[in-house]
């Protein structure tokens, strides 16, 4: 059972602002989709999980400095730029 409050909570965790009609629609859809997912309850617990298929362990390389991307090209895609830096939103309220 998924409530409207659950949908608001998830949206808040995912940082997506939702309108009331979106919440209503998503709630109904999520309920149906999650019910379908619950077939996995049948899967036995005593199976090892597979995180990635080739069982690679950590891949290391030498830490050698390389040319960075050109600053102008990197900043070109940002709307808020100041003194050659990205400008982000305020962290503190008020």
């Amino acid at each position, binding site marked *: 059972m998924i409530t409207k409050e659950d949908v608001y909570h998830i949206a808040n965790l*995912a*940082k997506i602002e939702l309108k009331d009609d979106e919440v209503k629609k998503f709630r109904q859809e*999520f309920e149906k989709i999650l019910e*379908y997912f619950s077939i996995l309850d049948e899967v036995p617990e005593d199976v*090892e999980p*597979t995180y990635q298929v*080739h069982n690679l362990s950590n891949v290391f390389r030498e830490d050698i400095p390389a040319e960075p991307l*050109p600053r102008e090209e990197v900043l070109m895609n*940002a709307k808020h730029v100041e003194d050659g830096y*990205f400008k982000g939103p305020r962290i503190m309220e008020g």
Partner: protein
Amino acid sequence: MITIAEWRERLESERCYDLISELFDRIERSKLNAFITLNKEEALRLAEEYDKGKLKGKLAGIPVAVKDCISTRGLRTTCGSKMLHNYIPPFDAHVVERLRQEGAIIIGKTNMDEFAMGTTTETSYFGVVRNPYDLERVAGGSSGGSGACLGGDESVLALGSDTGGSIRCPASFCGVVGLKPTYGLVSRYGLIPYANSLEQIGPMACCVEDCAKLLEVIAGKDPRDSTNAGVEFRFNPVDRKFKVGIIGEMGGNDDVMGKFEEVVNEIIKPNFEVVEVSMPSFKYALPAYYIIAMSEASSNLARYDGVRYGYALDKLDTWTKYFSKVRAEGFGEEVKRRIMLGTYALSAGYYGKYYLKALKVRTLVKRDFERALKDCDVLIAPTMPALPFKIGELADPLTMYKMDVNTVPINLAGVPALSIPIGFVKGLPVGMQIIGRYFEENTILSFALKIEREVKHEI
């Protein structure tokens, strides 16, 4: 459809510049909506270089269309999203570097479902891609533009990406060849991520040989992708009596099964040893796939904050308000749905019920493939369970997800699989999926080559 051989034959008597111009004329008049951004200026300049004998390499002078989730330096890369509608990558993906090194001409960026989340390209911010065989139907997804441009004579080669069937579905719906390589064969450096542990970039083409040629160029070592296996690929067709397994759990509706069984009875059984194989874990594969893909998406797409690139608001606000509004306005509905469901599946109290269970299913699916492929050289099944859908036909998200039932088990296991056209039903193409062992693309392509010859003979 235009093969490399046909294109090269024309290049013997015509200028590359004229052929590429002709291609752009066709694209600009086209109703397919296969491209989001064209690379006209650079493509024509490269064609001129080819005409002067300056463009060299394995794919010299050959037009290639690149899916719009693959980064191209200086050329807009949108991922089919409003979020990246104005994004210009400052670097090339590994596969794009390789195309340039081999003299290929990148003609443009192909339309796709937003962030590759879809089976029809209906979730693209830039509109649906239409099927070359019926404009009222979809071209498949998520690499719909890459499939349609090949089926509609708008390119010779194309790159797609496949997280749960996104190369094979449009290949099937557009009557072309498409391969999802073994996980780790092709570097993902520069592929805008959706679900890293599942996805691969792969080749799409108008015949098996061309598909193999493009794979030769894009496969291989790249230290910038830590999951890259460092394995090269060379196509060396082998001719032997392949042992073929038909997967009982992968089916389709009567249209699809009628054609599939016809090909099995008339082409495959007389030429190869055929056995039935059973994959009991597949009944859990679809929900497991969606849980893993959505969970990875919820983490991957956290990067879209309207600060460094992508959709942004005129005025900065507080942290939470700014991010939440940027993401509300920049993402489409399906992307929001998947991010939120993934967030839910990973949230406290649900991790064990959904995500961990899905990873256990992954083990079971992998074991089923390993068992079946110990005995068989290749496994076959219909690629899609239905013919190309009418635009708007699949309105409900869960109904849409279920159309990926035959393609997602492959990504869970990471094995390679190719879709090849096997004929038409009601004027629409049908595709067959050929699955092989890890890094045995050569076996799949060799088998596909034989099927292609027989199918052409039958048609």
